[in-house]
C-alpha cells in the first residue's frame, strides 16, 4: 500500500468508537480493517448477511458459504451473527450501522455523493451503496483527493448521477480531513507538510478552515 493510502486508512480507523458496527466498502475502505485496534471491539458488517468479518482464511481453508460482499472468501469471528438480506438492510437502513466507509468519484458541499456510475464505463449497479450511505450513522469517504489527472473530486456540486443526497459526514484524503457541515466543507485536519493553499487549490468547493486546524 502506498504511503498516502496508508495515511488515509489509518486516519479513518481512528473515527470508530468502542463497540461500533462498521461497514467497509470494497477497495481502499476494506484496508481500514487492518488499522482498527482489537481492544476497540469494533464489529464489521458484511451486507451479504453477517456481522463479524474476521481475518482472510488461510489458503485451503476457505468455506464456500462464507464470503464478503465482494464475493471474496472470508471468515466470521466468534460472537458474529448471520442473517438474511432483509435483516442485513434493516440493520443498515435502520441506523444500526455506526459508520460506513466508501470511496467516491465526487462529493460536494451539500454532502451529496456520486460513487456508482463511472462515466464511459458499464454501469455496475448500486448494490448496497445507496442504502449504506442513506442509513449509516456516519458516512466516511476515504479517497485520494483528486482524480488521476489531478482534477478535483470535492466539488461545489456533483455532476455525476448521485448515490445519495446530503449523506456524507466526513471526507478523508491524503491531504486532510474534512467535515461536511450545513455551512459547507470544514477542513479540520491537514496532512503533514501540506499547506491550506495547496489543499484548496486541489478542491473546487470553498473550504472553511477550522479555527482549531490540526495536523492529521
Amino acid at each position: 500500500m502506498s504511503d498516502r493510502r496508508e495515511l488515509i486508512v489509518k486516519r479513518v480507523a481512528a473515527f470508530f468508537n468502542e463497540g461500533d458496527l462498521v461497514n467497509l466498502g470494497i477497495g481502499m475502505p476494506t484496508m481500514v480493517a487492518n488499522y482498527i485496534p482489537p481492544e476497540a471491539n469494533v464489529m464489521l458488517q458484511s451486507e451479504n448477511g453477517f456481522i463479524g468479518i474476521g481475518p482472510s482464511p488461510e489458503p485451503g481453508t476457505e468455506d464456500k458459504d462464507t464470503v464478503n460482499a465482494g464475493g471474496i472468501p472470508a471468515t466470521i469471528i466468534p460472537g458474529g451473527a448471520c442473517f438474511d438480506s432483509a435483516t442485513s438492510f434493516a440493520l443498515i437502513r435502520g441506523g444500526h450501522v455506526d459508520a460506513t466507509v466508501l470511496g467516491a468519484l465526487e462529493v460536494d458541499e451539500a454532502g451529496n455523493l456520486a460513487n456508482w456510475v463511472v462515466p464511459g464505463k458499464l454501469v455496475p449497479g448500486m448494490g448496497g451503496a445507496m442504502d449504506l450511505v442513506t442509513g449509516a450513522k456516519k458516512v466516511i469517504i476515504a479517497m485520494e483527493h483528486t482524480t488521476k489527472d489531478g482534477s478535483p473530486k470535492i466539488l461545489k456540486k456533483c455532476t455525476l448521477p448521485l448515490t445519495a443526497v446530503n449523506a456524507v459526514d466526513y471526507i478523508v484524503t491524503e491531504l486532510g480531513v474534512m467535515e461536511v457541515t450545513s455551512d459547507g466543507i470544514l477542513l479540520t485536519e491537514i496532512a503533514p507538510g501540506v499547506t491550506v493553499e495547496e489543499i484548496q487549490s486541489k478542491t473546487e468547493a470553498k473550504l472553511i478552515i477550522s479555527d482549531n486546524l490540526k495536523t492529521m
Partner: protein
Amino acid sequence: MNKVKDLEEITGYFRDNQSIMIGGFLCVGTPELLVDALVKKGVRDLTIIGNDTGYPDRGIGKLIVSGQTKKAIVSHIGTNKETGRLMNTGELEVDLVPQGTLAERIRSAGAGLGGFLTPTGVGTIVEEGKQTLTIDGKKYLLELPLKADIALLKAWKADKLGNLVYRRAARNFNPLMAFSAELVIVEAEEIVEVGELDQDEVVTPGTLVDIIVKA
C-alpha cells in the same frame, strides 16, 4: 405428501415468459443445479429476480449468457460483463434496484403488504417515476412489492416437509423469496427426516416449500 423430487421432474414447471426469483449473492447460496435445469429446458423471455447476475459461467449469469433472460431485476451486474453488453445493445432490460430496497420489495410481496416507504434513492435516478411521500418532514420513496411465478432456492438442510436451514452467507435472499413466489423449489445439500431439525432452528417454515431436490 412427498415434496422430494428428482431434478428431471421439475423442468415440467418451466415456461416461456415466467418470472423467476433465484437465491444467492454472487453465487453463494445459488441453486446451481436448478439453474442448470432451467438453462437445459431452454425456456425464453424470462424475468429474473436476484441480487446480481453472478458470473458468466456461474449462477444467474448462465441465464444471461444463454439469452433466455428478457429482463433482470437485480442490484448489481458488475461481475458479469455480458449483462452490461446485452443491456447496452438493448437485448436485455435491466432494472437496477438498491439492494436493501430489493430485499424489502421481495419481503413485502411475501408479507401481503402493498408497498413501503424508504429513504434510499431519494434525489437519485432511483426516484424517477416513483410516488414520494413526506412523513414528519422526511421524504421517502414508495416502493412496491415484487413477486414471481417461481423461486429457485438453495438450502443447507431441508427436512421432508420443506423446513429449511441455511449456512453462513448462503442465507441472503433465500428466506425472503420463499414467501414471494407461487411455486417454491429448493435445492438442498442434505435432506433429513422430519423431526431432525429443531423447531427453533428452522429459518424457512416447510409450509412455504413445494418441491425439494437433492443437491
